[in-house]
């Protein structure tokens, strides 16, 4: 009995550990998408942030400097995305893809040039990492709590503040917002910047909290899983959080199920469980699990009326 309880607690802790970057990314992406800016570049922002967090922490010996660098790196890419999509009305998906590929290459190029370890940063220890606060076994570092707080924060800002109301409006009918005398561009830039902040924290979590250093392509598609969680949550913070936890749980279970034979089913392929978040999202998108409705103006550049 006690053994079962330990297993449950351990699985829950593992779920939270895996879900933390997903939650941060999903909440960030939510702000961006609510304002009408599609963000396929979450993955790239997170990767770049992870690299700069580990590189800075390694050079300065301070995890907090790492967090700062991560936010800065993600914000630079967020501004680039804003510059391309808001200022120059470029294709949002193309810009996001460009950011992903750029981050994929640049992290390895800079990492190799600076550290000469095939794209990895030196291993981090002690104060170079964000360490657990209360429960060393569970790995409850400060960013886990930041992720948990980001959900009520996102809900409150989007649903309960004037800024949130305008944000939702600009993602549905930007013309109406402009007509009310509010700048569409400035609103969207703020949304994109909030997204950068949260994606930056997610990246820092990966390289200086969950792991002890940066390794190439360490985001491994988590930015896209966060995107899937947003869709699954129908562009609402709390359901999106639920989707992140569910995907995290799947991952935690996948690790436990490796090589285990289930009665009646046999061995469940690990690849199936790994692909499950994507498969579930695809089923959802195909309309088999109810309809999802994206913000109406998402992906449409706004041309100011003259």
């Amino acid at each position, binding site marked *: 009995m006690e053994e079962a309880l330990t297993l449950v607690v351990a699985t829950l802790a593992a779920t939270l550990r895996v879900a933390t970057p997903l939650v941060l990314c999903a909440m960030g992406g939510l702000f961006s998408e609510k304002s009408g800016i599609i963000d396929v570049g979450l993955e790239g922002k997170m990767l770049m942030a992870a690299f700069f967090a580990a590189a800075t922490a390694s050079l300065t010996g301070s995890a907090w400097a790492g967090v700062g660098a991560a936010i800065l790196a993600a914000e630079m890419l967020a501004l680039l995305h804003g510059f391309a999509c808001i200022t120059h009305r470029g294709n949002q998906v193309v810009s996001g893809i460009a950011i992903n590929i750029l981050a994929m290459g640049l992290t390895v190029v800079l990492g190799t*040039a600076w550290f000469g370890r095939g794209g990895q940063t030196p291993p981090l220890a002690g104060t170079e990492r964000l360490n657990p606060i209360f429960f060393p076994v569970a790995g409850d570092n400060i960013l886990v709590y930041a992720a948990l707080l980001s959900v009520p924060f996102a809900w409150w800002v989007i649903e309960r503040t004037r800024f949130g109301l305008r944000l939702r409006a600009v993602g549905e009918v930007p013309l109406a917002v402009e007509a009310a005398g509010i700048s569409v561009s400035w609103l969207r830039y703020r949304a994109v910047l909030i997204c950068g902040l949260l994606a930056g924290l997610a990246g820092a979590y990966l390289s200086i909290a969950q792991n002890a250093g940066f390794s190439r392509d360490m985001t491994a598609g988590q930015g896209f899983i966060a995107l899937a969680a947003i869709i699954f949550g129908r562009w609402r913070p709390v359901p999106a959080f639920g989707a992140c936890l569910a995907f995290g749980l799947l991952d935690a279970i996948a690790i436990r199920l490796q090589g285990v034979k289930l009665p009646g089913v046999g061995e469940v392929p690990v690849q199936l469980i790994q692909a499950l978040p994507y498969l579930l999202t695809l089923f959802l998108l195909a309309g088999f699990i109810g309809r999802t409705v994206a913000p109406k103006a998402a992906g449409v550049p706004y041309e100011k009326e003259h």
Partner: protein
Amino acid sequence: MSASRPPLPGWVEIGLLPLANIAMAFLVVGLIVKLIGVDPFHALKLLVLGAVGSSESIGYTLYYATNFIFTGLAVAVAFHAGLFNIGGEGQAYIGGLGCGLAVLALDGILPGLLMIPLAILASAAFGAAWAAIPAWMQAWRGSHIVITTIMFNFVASALMVYLMVNVLIAPGSMTPQSRGFAASAAVPSMQATLQWVGIAVAPSALNLSLLLALLACVGVWIFLWHTPWGYGLRTLGHNPEAALYAGTNLKRTTLLAMCLSGALAGGVAVNELLGVHHRLVLDFAAGYGFTGIAVALMGRGHPLGIVLAALLFGALQQGGAELNFEIPKITREMVVVIQGLVILFSGALVHLPRPWLQALFARKG
């Protein structure tokens, strides 16, 4: 979108604007190389030498370009229909599954003259089928093709790992790869072919798949600009309402565009599996799908432009490897950075230099 922008002369629009975009991308690359502490011009010299300095390096440049022509065409065909197919990677990968299954089942009984065309068809068919699902989801169920094709890349990767590790692995093999294909399923190498007509070149990965890629370029050009289906496809991309009014079946045209796109991506499998590896291996399509986006954007969606862009990226890929050999500080991933920047400047920021060019060349209205 461009309605409010005054028009530029044709040669500026087709020639100068894309060049300005590429120039900006390479300017940034030069700055990054400088930042790393290497003289950009020295690096450029080594890169060019590594890409076209010998008949072997030219062979490898053209071999990489073959893949990029296939994926570039794949992205372009979908783009002309207003569809952003990011799934080229997965479609090429699943195309390889079709190719491998066909060869593994039949290479013992069929002669090369039948086996190779059949394997090519299987690659195209599986690639098309993998693209057909997101197309169906977009046209009939209203889900966004960008999101679905991204997800299908991950699903394709998981599926292939499972099949390679558990089902298709050669008996007794430690690495997840299939048994070798019979010689009848090999697309002849360019070196062997040229030797046959009396021209001696150094051996490389280049094979006759390049001719198939060029043939595909001509086919796409004829299809898009000289057939009613191509016309319907392009109308769908420009103005879906007009296409509907003109009697185009939007759903079926979406499906057609994506299937064609997926089939073209399947060409990567022909070049890689039938031309080089001669067995089914993991991750043979890695990176080619994304490069296809850069190639299509840079080539402005036209087969001729795509061939030129594919040659450039082929040269970068090959030259980048040589550059890394000479200067270990500059890794091969520099090519990935260049791809990202080209997609950024030729895609998302395509209109950035327009105001400057307009100030220079705008027609007086």
